[in-house]
């Protein structure tokens, strides 16, 4: 199979979902089954094609990069700048082909799951259409070869995310969440936009390759390394928004208002991982300082997510904060230089986190059905305090959920262990080279917390007794279309897909395929060199593995002690933690803070602007109402004339002078003659001196 065929396949993969979107948006309602089979079928085909590409690429052309491009806009030879043209194109390298499979796989399975989950929804076909739009946009991000397309699809996934979060837009919380997601993402995108502006102004192109080459030969923005760092950080801003990194993470928990399969697809596995993918793509031009910023942002995010997740009761919220935390993990990994580990975690996380969400979807679906049957609309079907004991009723869901939980907690023989272990080793290595020991310490802490809150979730949901025994019998296992995807994800969460050695991924195919790219930035600002880093990681590896197993075990143990065996009363823990608990329970008050400062500030500024516009700017021209009223009392007739269209202040002013001048016209002819003589005298004296 030649590279041309691969490119062709890639194009099919990209455009088939778009076709699906168009078909469903225009004809969806008229198609049989509202067209869900079209959408799902198309995704199945893309999955197949992606797998073909993956195998062919990794087996036949492991070290090559295929690019196909065309000139989209050609400015020609621009005066004072030189030739400018904008090329669009796609690029297939190992990174993108793996990502292709991840995206199409998750998307396909979510499509399948949705057939069950969304059955009977009012906008069923619309839902599948939007899923198609999302898949298209996400695939665009994956295979692009330039910043512009990256940005374009970046925004488009934002759009599809907006549409899907707001799927049940009759609920104000849903439309609020959708809006919030888009706007918060926009903030990050604005930063990314500025970063791209810096890049384009310097290199007059958007294409990754050309830019990397230019930097490699020493061309940097405005001749200053600081600008290069700035460009890196600004581009990373896009990732901050999309991957829900601190300080823009607040949209993701709210985004759980969308249908659960959407959360699985977009807000767990793929779109939110796009930020990580972006960092991986632009890793080459990140300076040491930029990577340091990335590391710490990731670290902070990881901790925030973990800390908040501990105290949440909404099943999806726990998963959402867990996602934030894990994304922070990946970002941090890339920042420290553990490139492969970070990306690897993206891939493994995609399957087990999508699985977790789908599992929770299955649970919510069951709860919802049960509550519906009882006409109970008060009880929240997503609150884990209303659950418990589902193990017996939903065995498949439980088992798969267990596997996912083990994976995310980093228990050996799972994919999560492989990737997390590598990341932790990376942080240790990073610390040993740079001296930033806070990074591994906190990373391990997060690992422990993750194990704890995930098992807390598992136990509260599935173990023990059901909260309300009267509805226990109404809870049933979900249908096959929902459980089969779960099983597939569960299988993918085991180690053997990635490496035959359950205690080390570095010998697997993944590590062979993905290698940390060479940094092209000027040597003075380069991050820790790959070889030095690799050495350090190698030394720390065993320690990391042992520690990680230990810490994960501790977390799991503690969760069982508190929630399963109830040796320690959860309420007492809560009281002991005191304000810390409230702090965590209230999500560290981020939303409140932003509402007061950013949202409140903007709205205040906006109202101020409106006031300024209505009162001052218009007022200068218009005369404020008060003066008008005062005058109307004074002259009686003024108001009449005001209403007659002389509201303008300038008019008011001239009108006022006119009013005075008018008084000279007394009607007495002798007064007129006095004025005339007076003027003559004035003229006389003025012009006598001239």
């Amino acid at each position, binding site marked *: 199979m030649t590279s041309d065929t691969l490119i062709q396949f890639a194009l099919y993969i990209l455009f088939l979902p778009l076709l699906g979107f168009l078909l469903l*948006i225009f004809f969806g309602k008229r198609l049989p089954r509202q067209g869900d089979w079209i959408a799902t079928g198309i995704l199945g085909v893309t999955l197949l094609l992606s797998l073909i590409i993956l195998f062919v690429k990794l087996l036949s052309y492991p070290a090559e990069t295929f690019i196909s491009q065309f000139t*989209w*806009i*050609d*400015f*020609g030879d*621009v*005066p*004072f*700048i030189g030739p*400018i043209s904008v090329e669009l194109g796609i690029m297939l390298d190992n990174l993108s082909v793996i990502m292709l499979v991840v995206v199409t796989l998750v998307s396909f399975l979510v499509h399948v799951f949705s057939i069950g989950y969304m059955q009977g929804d*009012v906008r069923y076909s619309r839902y599948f259409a939007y899923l198609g739009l999302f898949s298209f946009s996400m695939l665009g991000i994956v295979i692009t070869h330039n910043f*512009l397309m990256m*940005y*374009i*699809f*970046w*925004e*488009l996934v934002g*759009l599809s995310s*907006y549409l899907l979060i*707001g799927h049940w*837009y*009759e609920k*104000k919380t849903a*439309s*609020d969440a*959708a*809006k919030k997601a*888009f*706007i918060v993402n*926009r*903030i990050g*995108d*604005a930063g990314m*936009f*500025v970063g791209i*502006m*810096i890049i*384009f*102004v310097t290199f007059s192109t958007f294409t990754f390759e050309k830019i990397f080459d230019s930097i490699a030969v020493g061309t940097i923005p*405005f001749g200053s390394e600081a600008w290069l760092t700035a460009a890196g950080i600004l581009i990373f801003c896009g990732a901050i928004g999309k991957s829900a990194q601190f300080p823009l993470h607040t949209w993701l928990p709210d985004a759980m208002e969308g249908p659960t399969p959407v959360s699985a697809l977009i807000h767990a596995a793929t779109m939110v991982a796009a930020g990580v993918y972006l960092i991986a793509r632009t890793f080459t031009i990140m300076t040491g300082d930029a990577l340091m910023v990335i590391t710490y942002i990731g670290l902070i995010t990881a901790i925030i997510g973990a800390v908040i997740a501990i105290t949440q009761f909404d099943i999806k919220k726990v998963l959402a904060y867990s996602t934030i935390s894990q994304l922070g993990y990946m970002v941090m990994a890339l920042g420290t230089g553990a490139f492969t580990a970070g990306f690897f975690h993206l891939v493994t996380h995609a399957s087990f986190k999508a699985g977790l969400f789908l599992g929770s979807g299955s649970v919510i679906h069951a709860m919802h059905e049960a509550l519906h049957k009882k006409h109970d609309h008060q009880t929240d079907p997503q609150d884990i305090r209303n659950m418990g004991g589902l193990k017996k009723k939903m065995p498949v869901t439980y088992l798969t959920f267990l596997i996912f939980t083990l994976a995310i907690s980093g228990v050996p023989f799972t994919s999560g262990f492989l990737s997390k272990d590598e990341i932790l080793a990376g942080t240790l290595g990073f610390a040993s080279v740079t001296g930033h020991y806070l990074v591994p310490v906190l990373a391990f802490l997060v690992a422990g917390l993750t194990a704890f809150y995930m098992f807390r979730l598992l136990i509260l949901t599935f173990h023990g007794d059901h909260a309300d025994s009267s509805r226990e019998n109404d809870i049933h296992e979900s249908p096959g279309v929902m459980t089969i995807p779960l099983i597939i994800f569960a299988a993918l969460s085991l180690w053997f897909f990635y490496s035959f050695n359950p205690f080390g991924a570095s010998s697997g195919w993944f590590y062979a395929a993905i290698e940390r790219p060479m940094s092209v930035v000027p040597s003075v600002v380069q991050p820790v060199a790959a070889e030095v880093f690799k050495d350090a990681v190698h030394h720390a590896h065993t320690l990391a593995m042992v520690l990680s197993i230990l810490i994960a075990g501790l977390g799991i143990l503690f969760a069982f002690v508190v929630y399963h065996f109830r040796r320690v009363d959860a309420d007492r823990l809560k009281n002991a933690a005191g304000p810390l608990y409230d702090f965590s329970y209230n999500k560290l008050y981020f939303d409140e803070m932003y509402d007061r400062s950013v949202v409140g500030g*903007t*709205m205040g*500024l*906006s*109202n*101020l*602007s*409106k006031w300024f*516009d209505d009162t001052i*700017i*218009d007022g200068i*021209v*218009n005369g404020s109402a008060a003066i008008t009223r005062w005058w109307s009392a004074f002259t009686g007739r003024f108001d009449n004339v005001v209403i007659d*269209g002389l*509201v*303008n202040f300038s*008019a008011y002013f001239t009108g006022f002078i006119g009013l005075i001048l008018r008084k000279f016209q007394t009607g007495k002819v002798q007064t007129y003659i006095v004025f005339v003589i007076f003027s003559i005298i004035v003229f006389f004296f003025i012009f006598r001196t001239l």
Partner: protein
Amino acid sequence: MELSILGIGILTWVVFLPVLGMIVVLLLPKENGLAIRATTAAATGLQLLLSIVIFMRFDRALLGINDPDSFQFVEMYRWISVDAVPWVGRIEINYFLGIDGLSVLMVILTALISFIGAISSWNIKRLEKGYFSLYLLLATGMMGVFVALDFFLFFVFWEVMLLPMYFLIGIWGGPRREYAAIKFFIYTFVGSVLMLIVMLALYFSVTYVDPTTGEKVHTFNILMMMDPANFEPGTVLYGVDTTWRYAAWILLFIGFAIKIPLFPFHTWLPDAHVEAPTPISVILAGVLLKMGTYGLLRISYPIFPDATVHYLYPMAILGVISIIYGALCAMAQKDFKKLIAYSSISHMGIVVLGMAALNTQGMVGAVLQMFNHGTITAMLFLIVGVVYDRTGKLGLYDFGGLANQMPKYTGVVMIAFFAALGLPGLSGFISELFSFLGAFDTFRTLAIISVSGIVLTAAYMLWTLQRVFLGALKEEHKTLPDLTTRELIAFVPLAIIVIFLGVYPAPAIDLMNASLSYLVEVVRTGGEFVIIP
């Protein structure tokens, strides 16, 4: 490039077709509303057809701007020529039409928006004859501005649209129509009086030697004014970087800025929009605002390159203020139409910023933004018109949940709103992108500040979307009908253009790229250009 029909040049046809239509409308009996409407639609439709012909036949490689030979479809007749009077030399006013890369897109836009406006005027109920004849006169005035190459002619067309607009707002407008109409009238009139002064000063400063007779001729020919060699020594605007040239530039700028409208000359716009009937809002936002920026590019830039370069930075600052301030004001509005009006201010700020960048990307972005803003805002006002027609309400909080009730409508709304907030894949993005890219090349800090505008735009657009279309449907709106075919006819071409140019903008960019690059060259070499970090 020459093209004529019945011996009359195509541009004359494009400009005066609506006037022909107007004459027919005036001759039709008052009762025959359908014939009046059909005539209007036919006249503007033909205009659109001809502009498409122009688009096809337009030579993309010719430069235009200050080179009379590379203008296309040129028509030049001596209109007024007063023979040699000893103290002024010969006086010349020409009927001089022609287009280049700068104006061709505007011609197409004007024809398109005029046609769409005519379609959406279908449900005007009162005094149709008056309405449609004024409407057609307005169409002629607008088109004339974009094709005139003689300053006097430009000015005449500029003014011709003033009165129809006044009456169209004043007679067929909303409750406070009188106030809005007079405000519009006076603002614009101030601008045009300032322009008149500069025009006359230019006229007395510029002479050229007529090759056939060898005498010195005073002329209003804009192209002649662009050649510094044509300025008579000793006249007021002679020289480079003189106080008088700066003053003239500022007067012109105020005149154009009022039209754009640029902060702080913008307050007429929200009032005019709120009161104007829907088709007139469409015209106002779709075409009239562009006349300001077009005027700057056609007149201020090449005639006063020195002053232009000197004032680039203040101009960019005003652009940035407009972007952010307009967005902030939009956010605080409770009236649907007013919100869109303020969003226009914000979007036109982007045009000014792009223009001020004085490089090809920025200019292309700006002119494309002019076109895109024309189509997108036209859609937005049509959208407002749809709910206003059905409910008579404009408050943002009066609605909610329309998405379910009116799916086709909501589809159109989505396209327009997301195009307005600069979503990639729709036309607004491309032009904003290049405007900002260009601006960043010249004013780094300003460009970075202005990017915050895209966040604010997203915020108020989505908030509006939420308030009007999402949420629960109100009881009294449960019977609202979806878009009618006639409304769809107005929406669909715009939507197609918005999407097409978002996906493949090259056809539009190719039209103007050569001319605008040349304009950049002309202006930059005429003044001392510096990049401001």
